[in-house]
């Protein structure tokens, strides 16, 4: 069981990493933010799986903290871009 | 190779990477980011020391861990102060350069 959970954690982490690698180079900041969001979710899933496998005490609380902050980077990004429309920010997006 | 040694080696590599960034990036915000990478590398070194000090039924030595927690908070407050200084510099100078001669050029221009 332990090996299976660890394997699943590795698989999920690998998957979202592939997405991240492709997108970090990729077309614009909005897609980068989206990829970071996906990696956040994948990271939480991997954390829960690893914690389930190794029985690290209190890992659910770490996951709860990460889940509470899951929207933060994206919200900060959209918020600060909108605050300054005159900066002609975000021209890299298609 | 166990997780602790691996984390220690990653810490060493992160210190190298961060140091390179601090030295080579001209933009202060990038220097700041690199400095934070460097700092987290140092924290990871503390992590391996903590893990190797596992004793008395604890999975890791609590003293280095407490140091790291303090360190993360202090690193954050230093970063926040640096960001505020940087934004102020940009607001006053319309530039974020750290070259001392750049400000002098600017002043000369505005005097003329």
């Amino acid at each position, binding site marked *: 069981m332990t090996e299976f959970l660890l394997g699943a954690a590795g698989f999920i982490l690998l998957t979202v990493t592939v997405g991240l690698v492709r997108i970090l180079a990729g077309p614009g*900041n909005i897609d980068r933010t989206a990829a970071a969001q996906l990696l956040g979710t994948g990271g939480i899933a991997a954390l829960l799986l690893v914690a389930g496998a190794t029985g690290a005490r209190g890992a659910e609380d770490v996951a709860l*903290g990460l889940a509470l902050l899951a929207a933060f980077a994206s919200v900060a990004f959209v918020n600060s871009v909108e605050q300054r429309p005159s900066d002609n920010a975000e021209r890299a997006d298609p | *190779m166990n997780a602790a040694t691996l984390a220690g080696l990653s810490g060493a590599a992160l210190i190298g990477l961060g140091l390179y960034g601090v030295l*080579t990036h001209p933009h202060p915000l990038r220097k700041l980011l690199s400095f934070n990478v460097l700092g987290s590398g140092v924290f990871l070194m503390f992590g391996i020391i903590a893990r190797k000090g596992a004793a008395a039924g*604890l999975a890791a*030595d609590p003293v280095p861990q407490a140091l790291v927690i303090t360190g993360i908070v202090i690193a954050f407050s230093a970063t926040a102060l640096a960001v505020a200084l940087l934004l102020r510099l940009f607001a006053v100078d319309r530039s974020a350069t750290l070259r001392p001669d750049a400000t002098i050029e600017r002043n000369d221009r505005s005097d003329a």
Partner: protein
Amino acid sequence: MTIIEALDIGLAFLVLGVAGWTIAAHEAFTAVIGYVVYGLLLALVWVRLFALDVALTEAAIGSGVTGVLLISAAVRLRASEAEMMHERLGIAPRLVAAALCLVAAAALAAVVLDMPDPGATLAPQARQPLAELGLGNAITAVLIAYRAFDTMLEKVVLVLAVIGVWSLSTDANWGGLAGPTRLERTEGPLAFLAQLLPPLGIIVALHIVWVGANEPGGAFQGGALLSAMALIVLMARLREAPAIGRRWLRVALISGPVVFLAIGLLGFALAGGFLAYPLGFAKPVIVFIEVFMTLSVAATLPMLVIGPPDRRPS
């Protein structure tokens, strides 16, 4: 090689790769996105090192709150980047710097590989007063008893940082609402999130502070989550940030260090030394200090993130 080793190695490469991206990225904004992801991955690494307290701190502060700070800074400084492109170093100095950093990293790696195992440890000393203090989490015990002086000074540093940030406001704006001028209040999904998340976040944060005595958690982690909730309300513009002259704000900012210092001084009278806790009564005193430390952290971090006032006091 077992699966867990493969996972650890993969995670290490991932961390290094994202860190490399943060250093090498062309624009500051993409570098910051890399840094946010990097913080999250570091939290995973700390879980693998069985340092859950550190993982929680890294997740809340290293990734979450620092992320908000740096993302808004990167967006506001975007205009300064193009101008500084010509200041980039030539290839030769970069190679010299790279070689230097390689030597530094290699030396540290050699130290890591040469470390005695098991190494020197203070774990038995840190564990020994646990029963006396009525605590189960050795890290909380270290923070609040064994190295209490450091923790108190750290709170002072946080207050000093806030003073430093505020002092960057202009004379005219002194006493105004903290942070940059914002747009109208938003409606829609962001407002919904900012109304729904804080009650849940406050429950989680209080839980983390409360269990911090025995399980991973504590005042820093809980306070950082509370400050994140304050930030989401500010980012959705449901409420304005308070004016920096408000008395309740200032009291909240300094409550942590002041209470800590006062109890430390009381230690002379009651327990025979600075920051000594009275025997048999230590746990309630520690919880009392932690409550005010949480409040202090929760008030300080948002003030540090949103920056000095940008408007005249009304």
